């Protein structure tokens, strides 16, 4: 074996010191963590969250006359709603300022009658050129529907457009919370 040069010996010594230090660093935490016992237990359970929301079959209506138009509103979520809001925008024609009124009915409208009656107003009178949020407090089970009708009033020379955007906000517009014990 050839004798080691001083430089090689120095490198070897450095390597030994580094190895000892690394061993110490690795061993010390193990000793520390092994200082006590821990008891551990686990339990599992799965959960799925619901969805909420309603859709309007027709979200845009054009009016050239005083003829009312209707749309179905259906709960397409998996959680019942307790109320639904509708953002209603009425465009402003160049001539005149017609108004709109929204009514709801639990069954499909027949003309302007709801089961022989006028239906239930949702919000007040809406003026052309405004955007208003109206709210129905009718609860809808998943898959259930009610029917809105927009009744125009005033003079129509040019087309007035009404857009309906239904919204459901949690938790306020959902069914009351349910408490389950199992």
């Amino acid at each position, binding site marked *: 074996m050839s*004798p080691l040069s001083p430089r090689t010996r120095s490198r070897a010594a450095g390597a030994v010191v580094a190895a000892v230090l690394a061993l110490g660093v690795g061993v010390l935490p193990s000793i520390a963590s092994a200082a*006590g*016992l*821990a*008891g*551990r*237990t*686990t*339990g*599992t*359970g*799965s*959960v*799925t*969250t*619901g*969805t*909420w*929301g*309603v*859709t*309007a079959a027709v*979200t845009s209506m054009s009016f050239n006359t005083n003829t009312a138009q209707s749309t179905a509103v259906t709960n*397409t*979520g*998996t*959680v019942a709603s307790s109320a639904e809001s509708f953002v209603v925008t009425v465009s402003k024609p160049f001539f005149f300022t017609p108004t709109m009124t929204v009514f709801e009915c639990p069954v499909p409208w027949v003309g302007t009658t709801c089961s022989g009656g006028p239906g239930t107003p949702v919000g007040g009178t809406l003026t052309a050129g405004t955007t208003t949020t109206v709210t129905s407090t009718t609860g809808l089970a998943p898959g259930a529907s009610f029917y809105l009708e927009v009744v125009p009033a005033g003079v129509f020379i040019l087309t007035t457009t009404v857009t309906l*955007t*239904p*919204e*459901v*906000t*949690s*938790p306020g517009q*959902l*069914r*009351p*919370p*349910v*408490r*389950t*014990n*199992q």
Partner: protein
Amino acid sequence: MSPHRHTRKKTRSTGRLAVTGLLVTSAALLATAGVYAGLSATATGAESVSTGSLDLTLAPDVGVGFSNFTGKLAPGDTDNVYVNLKNTGTLASAAGMTLAVAGNPVTALTSGSVAGEGLTVSATQCSVAWTLATGTCTGTTTPILTTTLASALAAPVALSNIPALAAATGQVAHVQVTLGLVANETSTNGVAPAATVQGLSTTLTYTFTEQQRTGVATNQ
């Protein structure tokens, strides 16, 4: 003769000397050991020891315990399960326990990706077994975890008011664990927001951990 040859010869000579020295020293040591072998004396003492164990078990208190929630959880809903935490080991635990909750798969329900929304967990201890039908405690209740987003329980969180919770050997803690959902979301024309907790599923793993009591020094 070249200078290299001279150096090699010198090295060989030094090596022979070292080997001879080692042999002489070894012989001397062996001889000394032989002298003392006849004079050794031995004393023995015996002591037995058993180690303790620290075991924490989980079982239903009333009802089915941790299980699947079969409905569709809505914001504000709560699902209560009732479990017993029992120290079945032979060692008392230290006054303290942690709870961690992990979701699999990781979704917005447990990741905290939708600010302020997601599953929540709370826990309450009852001094006696819970009444399943009403979800009430006829004894004394002690809140041990206030309503906390599951995303904040990814790392173990210390439960509060723990000193009496499964601390002594054989002691049972009757715990109601409540799962809830927090969500403030508006769905527009039936469409949920882009960041939502609606329509998600996950399996939650609840991990309770306790530590052993402080070590005891005995003099006898």
